[in-house]
């Protein structure tokens, strides 16, 4: 911390020193670049953190710039002009949030369609700006925009832009360090999984898009008085595309990378374009560059994209990691609040009745009927292809039911979204462990912890990253590697991932836990550990578990009640002995060496 504070100061000093060190010229050149950099930071948040690509950032930049320009001309000038910052920043932010919400609602993906929608929007924005002469001044632009108070000469403009950039970077660092940043990164790796921890992924992504809108608004607010002119090109596709390119070059994943990219490419372009005037033999070169600088810049970012997937910032990854370690304060946990479960507490009553699922002509579930009504461990067994995992997928509505219904505590939950189910206290562990490989162990557990405890707004409070629960403490005792907070989940062994995923599922403290082969591929010791943990969870948390398992020895050991499935329907149920004695079951297991 101490270190990074010092570095913050260093950065601020450096930025503020530019005019005195490098002179007016650089001050002015950089001041425009800084404004672009602020807008680029927004792209970084959406793309580098939340994992979706906005191709229309220019639209919000343009909108804000026109608002700011019109405001300064018609509403308030001079000192009062500064008050315009409020609406000019808020409006694009809110607009972006709403658009994001509308587009993302009811989806757990952000494929190319989102990028194209924003692209189409920015093309529209350009047309409106060009055609709406009376308001925007049309193609020639909105001219004679007065300066803001204290923005008269180049140096002032620079300082204002510089301070703005510092604020914007700080804003991004805060978001990225805050819980919401962690959740965004988790979301970008496995959106479906995030939903099962009770997050509304649409809202999360909309929030990122909204934050990007705020940043664009901030940049636009300063652009108008800085240039005294706003033209449609600002809202156009080329600007939007450049912002994306700069973010990629600088490093979309880091807080400061996008700004770095904007500054580097911005400076590079200007220098190649206007660098001439040395005289001597260089003139021919500069004449060439004056015409072909675009090609050089294009070549530059192709190379960065090919060889530096994390952009320029990626180069500093190691350094930075070690620096962080130097500066880290000891972890001081605080007790997390209890889970906010909707509906009845205590053991859940889950009832599937007559569930039919078919994909094409394939019958997956064939009138399945199950009842769980006490805090116990229910095992779901049956030959491969009997429909065990499909039962889980039906519960979590990834498979659409043609017939039948699912009730929780008497209330119909068939067709409810994953996050609703999680909110009702249903947790799930997937067959293939789906931890978030790019996050640390601590962050993986936190994501699970916050999902059912924190509201979206409180995800902005850094203190949430210190949350801890007795349950987690116990899990750390049972599985010591969980205490290695900063290990990256991607580096864990298969077994450790299985355990981590189970720990995450438990950390959410659900009332009903769906476990799909929690011991698959585990060593005997690990298996032992996992089983003990599950048994313990049942005792301590009064947890109801529905567990898919092939290993009969495990089933014998832990099952309070066994469901045997065959060809998508319930074949038999009862305690282990009863089931094993059942002829129908033996019949099914013919050939399976029963």
């Amino acid at each position, binding site marked *: 911390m101490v270190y990074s504070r010092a570095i913050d100061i260093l950065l601020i000093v450096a930025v503020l020193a530019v005019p005195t060190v490098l002179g007016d010229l650089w001050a002015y050149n950089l001041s425009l670049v800084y404004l672009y950099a602020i807008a680029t930071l927004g792209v970084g948040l959406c793309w580098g953190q939340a994992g979706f690509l906005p191709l229309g950032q220019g639209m919000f930049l343009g909108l804000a710039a026109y608002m700011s320009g019109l405001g300064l001309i018609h509403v308030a000038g001079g000192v009062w002009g500064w008050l315009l910052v409020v609406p000019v920043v808020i409006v694009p932010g809110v607009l972006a949030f709403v658009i994001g919400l509308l587009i993302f609602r009811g*989806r757990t993906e952000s494929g190319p*369609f989102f990028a194209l929608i924003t692209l189409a929007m920015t093309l529209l924005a350009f047309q409106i700006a060009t055609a709406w002469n009376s308001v925007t001044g049309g193609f020639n632009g909105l001219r004679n925009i007065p300066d803001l108070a204290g923005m008269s000469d180049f140096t002032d403009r620079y300082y204002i832009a510089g301070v703005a950039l510092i604020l914007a970077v700080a804003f991004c660092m805060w978001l990225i360090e805050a819980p919401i940043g962690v959740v965004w990164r988790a979301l970008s790796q496995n959106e479906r999984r995030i939903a099962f921890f009770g997050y509304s992924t649409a809202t999360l992504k909309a929030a990122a898009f909204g934050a990007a809108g705020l940043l664009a608004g901030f940049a636009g607010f300063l652009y108008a008085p800085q240039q005294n002119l706003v033209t449609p090109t600002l809202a156009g596709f080329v600007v939007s595309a450049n912002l994306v390119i700069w973010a990629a070059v600088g490093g979309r994943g880091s807080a400061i990378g996008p700004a770095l990219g904007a500054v580097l490419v911005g400076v590079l372009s200007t220098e190649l374009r206007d660098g001439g005037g040395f005289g001597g033999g260089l003139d021919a070169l500069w004449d060439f560059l004056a015409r072909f600088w*675009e090609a050089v810049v294009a070549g530059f970012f192709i190379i960065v994209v090919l060889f530096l997937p994390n952009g320029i910032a990626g180069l500093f990854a190691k350094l930075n990691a070690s620096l962080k370690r130097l500066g880290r304060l000891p972890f001081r946990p605080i007790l997390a609040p209890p889970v906010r479960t909707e509906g009845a507490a205590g053991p859940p009553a889950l009832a599937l009745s007559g569930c039919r699922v078919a994909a094409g002509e394939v019958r997956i579930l064939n009138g399945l009927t199950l009842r769980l009504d006490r805090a116990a461990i229910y095992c779901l067994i049956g030959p491969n292809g009997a429909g065990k995992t499909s039962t889980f997928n039906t519960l979590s509505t990834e498979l659409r039911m043609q017939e039948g219904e699912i009730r929780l505590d008497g209330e119909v939950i068939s067709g409810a979204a994953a996050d609703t189910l999680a909110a009702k206290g249903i947790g799930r562990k997937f067959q293939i462990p789906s931890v978030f490989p790019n996050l640390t162990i601590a962050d993986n557990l936190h994501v699970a912890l916050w999902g059912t405890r924190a509201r979206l707004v409180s995800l902005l409070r850094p203190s949430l990253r210190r949350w801890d629960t007795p349950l987690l403490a116990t899990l750390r005792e049972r599985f010591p590697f969980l205490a290695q907070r900063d290990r990256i989940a991607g580096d864990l062994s298969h077994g450790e991932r299985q355990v981590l995923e189970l720990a995450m599922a438990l950390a959410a403290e659900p009332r009903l836990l769906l476990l799909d082969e929690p011991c698959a591929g585990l060593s005997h010791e690990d298996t032992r550990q996992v089983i003990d943990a599950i048994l313990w969870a049942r005792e301590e948390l009064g947890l109801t578990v529905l567990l898919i398992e092939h290993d009969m020895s495990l089933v014998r050991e832990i099952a309070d009640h066994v469901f045997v499935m065959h060809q998508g329907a319930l074949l038999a149920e009862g305690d282990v002995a009863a089931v094993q004695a059942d002829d129908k079951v033996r019949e099914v297991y013919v050939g399976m060496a029963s």
Partner: protein
Amino acid sequence: MDPLIVAQTLNFAYAVISLLLVVLGLAVTLGWLGVMNLAHGEFVMLGAYVAVVTERMGWPFWAAIPLTILFCIVLGIVVERLLIRPLYSRPFDLLLATWGLSILIRKIVEAAFGGGYISLTVPVKGSLDILGASYPTYRILIMAFTVALLAMLLAWYFRSSAAARVKAMVGNPMLAQAVGIDTNALARNTFVVGTCLAGLAGVIIAPVTSVNPFLGLDYVINAFFVIIVGGLGSVLGLFAGSGIIGGLDSFVSAILDRTSAFFLVLLIAIFFLWLRPRGLFARN
């Protein structure tokens, strides 16, 4: 029948079919391979310049067709190897890299041919009389050519096992290898086919457009809308997409004006992408 209506109907057909022509290449690279190739427009543009070279050489216009295919094979192989293959797993980065490529190609062409507009003599002059409306013969030929090309492609697509192998590779790469398909080579060849189709389109439209380094920009964005709105890798989607994007533009231009048409196309595109993000006829 009112010749105005006939002519505008022909315009409608021409708009849809000519858009189809320039989109075909992208339908292969993006639709089959999932390669978001922003340089598609520049491949079309390069095809047009092949036609220019052919004319300057004094060769007959049609000679440009084999020439552009040769040229595009080389181009496709080089681009796939250097730019596309390393990025298959990073679609968004691929988008950026090809955007960079498109700028490079534009500037290279500018350096080679200058930035000026080049006009080609229309290979087939005059116009045909159709239900009382006279329509330029060459545009009729473009439509005929496209339909023929399309028919060939579809025949190939549905018959030849090559098309089936591409589908197999895209749908299930691991099993594709399991049956012994060299996925690297197949992906490269598919990309090359896409490149050739783009170049071919460039040659065909060259005489009826303004050949200049920025030619490609006119097409690439609409091409993307067509593919995504229609649905990746779906033949029906390709038709639907061209119909919606090209047809709507032509229809509204005919009954209202170009500005409304432009706005409407964008709005409709947004609308479809919003409600059907996987496209109208997505491959399931």
